[in-house]
């Protein structure tokens, strides 16, 4: 898929969404420092091209599920950043009314079935969403994002099996940032991920996750197969992780040199800008304007979140059941 096949507006949208995710994450990291965001967050910065490349192939009614690192997928699927920021601040105006938080952020109206605090748990749930689409006769598809750590959970393999035998309209996107928490993938994963999926006769594609066009192209093939009744596909996407596993992680298991090199050599925003310049499709000034627009939107989201009230205490026991017992 050449960059030339996307329209001017689509290219701007790609950049805006990647930039929005990056700045959202950087701002969350800053706000963590103020103590106003409770708990911890798991940041997606560095992996933007994966979420954006995949979600650009999706329609409004399609479903995605996410991982611990759910902000980027949510933004890419169209979840409103004001409500997301408010959710991280634990406010009533949050996506989940302040009761989900970073690790459980979800918006079913946008087809976002939730980040997940349990590694790999989204895979079978997403098989269920794909099953719904099949049984209800819709043409929608479901995408399960998972990390390299999830590949060593048994439920991941079970989900491949289920997706294949039921020919589900699903795409498994394995975002491999090289680390499951603080442990290198190489130390804990035998064999190759694509071969694991291929052993279930699921077609696979291996992609550079810093190249949004490469991801877009691979996702296009996978989504088209799913939508056309051709069943599951697995994408193995290689991405960098700019921060530690969680926001309080000093990330000492990686050297300063490799972290610096990662940011210098594998930045999806830098490479996107370079590409646009090479093919003369977007002006620097246009991209700079997007940067400013994103900055203003995030300032506004943070200010609104900070001003928003916490949930009322009555929310403590609401929505446990349809009607509390």
């Amino acid at each position, binding site marked *: 898929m050449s960059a030339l096949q996307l329209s001017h507006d689509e290219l701007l949208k790609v950049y805006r969404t990647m930039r929005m995710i990056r700045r959202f994450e950087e701002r969350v990291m800053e706000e963590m420092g103020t103590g106003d965001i409770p708990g911890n967050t798991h940041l997606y910065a560095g992996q933007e091209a994966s979420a954006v490349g995949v979600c650009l192939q999706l329609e409004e009614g399609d479903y995605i599920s996410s991982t611990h690192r759910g902000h980027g997928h949510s933004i890419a699927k169209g979840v409103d950043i004001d409500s997301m920021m408010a959710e991280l601040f634990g406010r009533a105006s949050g996506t989940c009314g302040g009761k989900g938080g970073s690790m459980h952020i979800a918006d079913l109206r946008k087809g976002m*079935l939730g980040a997940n605090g349990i590694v790999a*748990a989204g895979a*079978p*749930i997403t098989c269920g969403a794909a099953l*719904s689409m099949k049984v209800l006769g819709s043409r929608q598809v479901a995408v399960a994002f998972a990390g390299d750590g999830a590949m060593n959970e048994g439920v991941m393999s079970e989900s491949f099996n289920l997706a294949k035998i039921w020919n589900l309209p699903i795409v498994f996107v394995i975002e491999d940032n090289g680390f499951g928490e603080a442990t290198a993938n190489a130390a804990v994963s035998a064999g190759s991920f694509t071969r694991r999926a291929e052993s279930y006769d699921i077609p696979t594609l291996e992609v550079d996750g810093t190249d949004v066009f490469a991801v877009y192209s691979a996702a296009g093939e996978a989504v088209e197969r799913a939508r056309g009744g051709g069943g599951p596909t697995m994408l193995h996407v290689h991405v960098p992780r700019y921060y530690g596993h969680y926001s309080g992680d000093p990330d000492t298991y990686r050297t300063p040199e490799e972290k610096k090199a990662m940011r210098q050599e594998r930045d999806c925003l830098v490479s996107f800008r370079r590409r646009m310049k090479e093919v003369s499709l977007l002006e620097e000034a246009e991209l700079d304007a997007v940067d400013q627009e994103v900055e203003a939107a995030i300032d506004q989201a943070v200010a609104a979140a900070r001003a928003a009230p916490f949930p009322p205490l009555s929310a403590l026991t609401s929505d446990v*059941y349809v009607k509390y017992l």
Partner: protein
Amino acid sequence: MAQKSFRQALNEALHFEMARDPRVIMMGEDLTGGAGANGVKDAWGGAFGVTKGLLGAFGPERIRDTPISEAAFIGAAAGAALTGLRPIAEIMFVDFAGVCLDQIMNQAAKFRYMFGGRAKTPLVIRATYGAGSRSGSQHTQALHSIFTHIPGLKVVIPSTPYDAKGLLLQAIRDDDPVIFLEHKMLYDTVGEVPDGAYTIPFAEARVARDGKDVLIIAIGRMVSVAEEAARKLAADGISACIIDPRTTSPLDEDTLLDFTDKIGRVVIVDEANPRCSVATDISALLADKSFDALKAPIKLVTAPHSPVPYAPNLEDAYIPTAAAVAKAATSIAKR
């Protein structure tokens, strides 16, 4: 009214609701039996024959034999419930919930709350439970206390064919995840079951037998054990009242408290292990809210705090007996 088995009552409920609502689908291991083989396709109808005939009526798209893969298919059922279907998933033996507890406890049970009330999860998980089949420790547990402990789950544990049908129909129509527990030794018990559809609301305990001297609160299969005990007690001049909560979450606290206030002497009978259990929970509730009405200590008759043994003499000793219930009731009846 027609006499039907517990199994037949459940089968009727499943047939009725699948015909009524195209969003209801079923999945589980050997739910039909014979998938992919050359013989009879609907060979089993589930390990206990409860789902027999559904494949012919509704086809393989809606009645799905799954791989032996509880974490995947219970998760898929939860995801399907979240996105527009009303799945019924069968765990052959509730012991196997250990394999997929994440999907029950961390996922399905919490969607509604974590997502700020914007999700509903109309999922029914049917599972067999209970001792008495000489199946050893991993096919015989009574785990309703574990599920009752988890907010977001509803737990149904019927004791008669009539209740089984009405409660299952209610469970399928409920918008929350429901754990529906069927004692495997009850499948062949017979009772009056209407042909048509009817529902029994949750949190409505049933007075299985009226009486004035001792209140016996019994759960699931233990209701029939309590009834046998009540007959013994009647011969000794002690009139026992039996209440079956029918759902342990939600729990009909009002009825349990009302009868405790009226009678003042309580025996709680449960097949589950006794520590941190529904039996101890109900006991604490009554002690907290009806203490002044109590004329004697609350007595618990449960299994011992051990796994279920295999040897027939040990398994028989494990399960609470009518004699033990009668003895407990007698010990407090005259105080």
